[in-house]
């Protein structure tokens, strides 16, 4: 036991602050400070919704700039000293830095959107932005956690403000009901996940994600391995429940339609995207750890795990698309589309596991390269998804503001009255379908390609690929339902005099343009994504 005096502790703290907090976790620090500032400002300054909004926006922008200055870690990696921090609780490398950038960018979009479309009083605005930033902070933590406990903390930090955000419109019956359902399902899922974490950490003796693989492998190679391996699978399943909940994968998707319909469209957009980006980042890390260093008995787990994920992915995609077909409410429809898109993204992870299984290693493919390819596809998909989904939900918010309805019946002719909004909606929706030359197509393309590579290892992945492809066609039915209402329907009497604010038009185009650009010139983005993958898989 080493001597412990107060000065040692203080010294450690300051060292941490100087060497770790500021250079590496500047964005998180800024977000924390912004939250405090917003609350302080609401006490000291004259409260207006605008000041709070400006504060939050500036905070996020500064944080994003912080990310910008760290981006040199991507690819090169060496000079910027990537690695595990806080004794391995967090990881900071060429993968997490851009993912955090993505999250911040997304938070900025969500913030600007709610700033321009939600009308609330100063006091409510303070609360809303605080919750939004708090949730974002949780997502940031989740995305870079390298420790299962930290991941759980991140999950909760992102979710708990989310519960409140869903119930933010207290005067609406549906809002409170939605938030209650979200809360109950969410709490149960996180409890189950935590139980899984506790078992897994007990079995392996570590909470570290990056050491998970080697520890699991160690279990598998010993005499008590068989039963312990079963226990490991069981605990992994429990943990996956938490992931699946956050990603609204079938069969843990129940909350999504209710929560998204009850929440305002802005909040629904925020919840549908943010959680995915952060959770997939962690899921990829876990999958890599589990599949990478395993040998012997334990390695046999990897292929079934990949196939299992493939099954879940197929179920999500199919169910999401089928259920969306019957929806009359745009938000609910988009909620089901979110479920389907989670499925598509999960396909990339499934392919990754299959390719990294021992069967993949022995088939003569370059495992490292194909792994990178899978991650590249997933990252690109997520990046496009940030824009296209927030765009779709944002335009739903605009429909609500201008037409007072979020039902397919009620928004007829929206695109004719507001041609710019309509055009942006076309871009978002067709990108969600996955048609070129829009970003969503390229996202699907790269994911399908990784499935195709995986199908060389396991023919089952070809089935997944075909199901995914066919679902793209199914999905057209309901997506086109939105466009049909918005363009082919006749606008209501008197709506032709409505005019969109130029700020709304600007924001809509700001979201639609990247989708178009990512579709037409995906080169830079895919290159960047593959650099990210390269810094993850060395």
């Amino acid at each position, binding site marked *: 036991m080493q001597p412990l005096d107060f000065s040692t502790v203080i010294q450690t703290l300051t060292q941490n602050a100087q060497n770790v907090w500021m250079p590496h976790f500047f964005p998180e620090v800024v977000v924390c400070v912004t939250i405090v500032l917003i609350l302080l400002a609401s006490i000291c300054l004259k409260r207006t919704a605008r000041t709070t909004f400006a504060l939050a926006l500036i905070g996020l922008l500064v944080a994003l700039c912080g990310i910008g200055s760290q981006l040199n870690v991507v690819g090169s990696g060496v000079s910027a000293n990537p690695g595990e921090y806080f004794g391995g609780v967090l990881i900071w490398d060429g993968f997490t830095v851009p993912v955090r950038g993505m999250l911040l960018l997304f938070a900025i979009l969500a913030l600007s959107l709610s700033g321009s479309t939600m009308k609330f009083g100063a006091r409510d605005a303070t609360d809303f932005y605080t919750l939004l930033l708090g949730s974002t902070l949780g997502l940031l933590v989740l995305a870079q956690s390298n420790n299962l406990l930290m991941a759980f903390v991140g999950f909760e930090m992102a979710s708990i403000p989310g519960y409140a955000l869903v119930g933010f419109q207290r005067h609406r019956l549906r809002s409170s009901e939605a938030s209650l359902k979200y809360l109950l399902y969410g709490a149960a899922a996180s409890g189950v996940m935590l139980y899984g974490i506790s078992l897994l950490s007990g079995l392996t003796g570590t909470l570290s994600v990056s050491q998970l693989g080697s520890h699991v492998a160690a279990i598998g190679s010993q005499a008590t391995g068989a039963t312990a391996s079963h226990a490991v699978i069981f605990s992994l399943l429990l943990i996956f429940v938490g992931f699946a909940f956050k990603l609204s994968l079938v069969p843990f998707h129940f909350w999504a339609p209710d929560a998204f319909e009850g929440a305002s469209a802005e909040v629904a957009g925020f919840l549908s995207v943010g959680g995915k980006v952060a959770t997939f980042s962690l899921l990829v890390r876990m999958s890599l750890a589990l599949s990478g260093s395993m040998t012997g008995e334990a390695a046999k787990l990897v292929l079934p795990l990949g196939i299992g994920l493939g099954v879940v992915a197929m179920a999500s995609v199919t169910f999401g698309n089928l259920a969306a077909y019957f929806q009359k409410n745009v938000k609910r429809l988009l909620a089901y589309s979110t479920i389907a898109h989670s499925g598509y993204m999960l396909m990339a992870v499934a392919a990754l596991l299959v390719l990294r299984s021992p069967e993949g290693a022995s088939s003569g493919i370059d495992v490292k390269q194909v792994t990178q390819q899978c991650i590249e596809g997933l990252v690109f998909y997520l990046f496009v998804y940030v824009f296209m989904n927030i765009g779709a939900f944002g335009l739903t918010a605009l429909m609500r503001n201008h037409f007072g309805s979020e039902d397919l019946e009620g928004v007829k002719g929206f695109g*004719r009255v507001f*041609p710019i909004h309509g055009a942006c909606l*076309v871009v978002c929706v*067709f990108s969600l379908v996955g*048609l*070129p*030359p829009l970003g969503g*197509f390229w996202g699907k*393309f790269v994911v*399908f*390609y990784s499935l*195709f*590579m995986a199908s060389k290892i396991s023919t089952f992945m070809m089935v997944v*690929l*075909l199901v995914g*492809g*066919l679902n*793209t*066609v199914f999905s*057209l*039915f309901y997506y*086109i339902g939105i466009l*049909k209402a918005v*363009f*082919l329907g006749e606008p209501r009497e008197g709506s032709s005099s409505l005019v969109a604010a130029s700020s709304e038009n600007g924001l809509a185009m700001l979201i639609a343009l990247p989708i178009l650009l990512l579709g037409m*010139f*995906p*080169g830079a983005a*895919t*290159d960047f994504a*593959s650099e990210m993958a390269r810094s993850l898989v060395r």
Partner: protein
Amino acid sequence: MDPLCYLSLLIFLPTLGAIILFGFPSKAVDAMRVFTAAITGVVFLMTLQLWLGGSFNPVLGTIQPVQEGVSVPWIASWNIHYRLGYDGLSLPLVVLTGFVSFLSAIASWSIQKLHKGYFILFLLLVTGMLGVFLALDFFLFYVFWEVMLLPMYFLIGVWGGPRREYAAIKFFLYTLVGSVLMLVAMLMLYFASGREFSLIGLAQQAAAGKFSSFEQTVAFILLFIGFAIKVPCVPVHTWLPDAHVEAPTPISMILAGVLLKMGGYGILRIAFPLCPLGAYYSSYALVAIGVVSIIYGAFAALAQTDFKRLVAYSSVSHMGYVTLGIGVWKLSEAHGIDFWLQGVSGAMFQMIAHGVSSTGMFFMVGVIYDRVHHRDLNQFGGLMGRMPLYSGLAAGIFFAGLGLPGLCGFIGEVAVVISTWNYDPLLAIIAASGVVLTAGYILWTMQRVYLGASYKGPHSEEIDHMPFTAREAFVGFTLLIAAIYLGVYPSVVFDVMDATLKGSLETLEKAVATVGK
């Protein structure tokens, strides 16, 4: 001018026009009409320049202006190139696209609502079509293929007839199914070839036997279904009558005149060269599908009472000759590829001829529909007396569709039927009987619509209020002249494509022959 710039300008000039159209005030309808017509006119002239401007050498039979196509890297990490070029296969279709676009832009005068949106989408559609024919990178091809879908959906869905929404979604859905299958095939070949998207490169690899026969067969089936939907071949043709009937006249013209040709073009440009073995194994199926399409389309046309639906089914029947002509591939010691070459040339010619004649037929239906607001064949009759000029032009064009010697429809059909004889005499006889059926329904239609006592049906007074305008006459005359010209002087098309077809068929033959018969 640098060929890459020239081709890009050709493709994207309509897009540019669409962007400029955004700036037009919504009230300036005439200005938009003229502007669109001018843009498409320039596009037509540019396509003619490709053909007649001296840059195209028909004897070469390779991709021009440069062997591998002019290209710049597009998405380098995926080895995707923005690669353009044309040869004897695509050039006639490019010119046809320019021609039909120009005429249907003129025919678009009849559009009554939301003009700005219409013309913007129309121009985007033209970009997509030209892109499909000029792209030499599989990925680029796919992108243009889909780009064309979006405007088409809206053009049918917003400006179409009463059941427009149904027709639009059906069209969209069918094409999307096809393109998803194409996507899977594309991934397969990309993977098997070691990350290659260039159509020429892929074709070379296929010819060198790099793809296994299993891969080729699967890929061919996927690709063929995708293209067959567009052609349309019989089991997957059901989108066509709906889309044609509900689409506004100029869009029907484009659909029939250009879009259907993309199917045939795709088969010849992609499905065959990339999977020669698969194509060879499936040739009998192709021929059978072609024959069934011919007969089924003709019988279905006979049964129609809707004028436009009849013309639509006649397209199914006529395009059947294309599938048939492409499919008559039989390795034979005696004749080599002669008969097959004749079939494919006939199919190509049939595509061009059908592009002219069916465009004309749809236009003629549209002209009369604008006046009497119905298409019921049983209520027509005696238009000849009321509108002699119109009826004369229409008769000429319908005769072209019928396949009367001296008009464009004749040559392709005859060439295809003759080469089929070599493949399977029975099928040839059946296909030939399709010609008789075609004559039957077209003559019967002409009798029901144009002949007889003077028209007294619904809205007969409108015919006097709206005389046959010079604009309409111009479109009609142009199409008729084109039909006659192609009928009398078919070698204008054959000259362009002979060398190319011969070269590519020989390559295919070699690729299959090396594997063994």
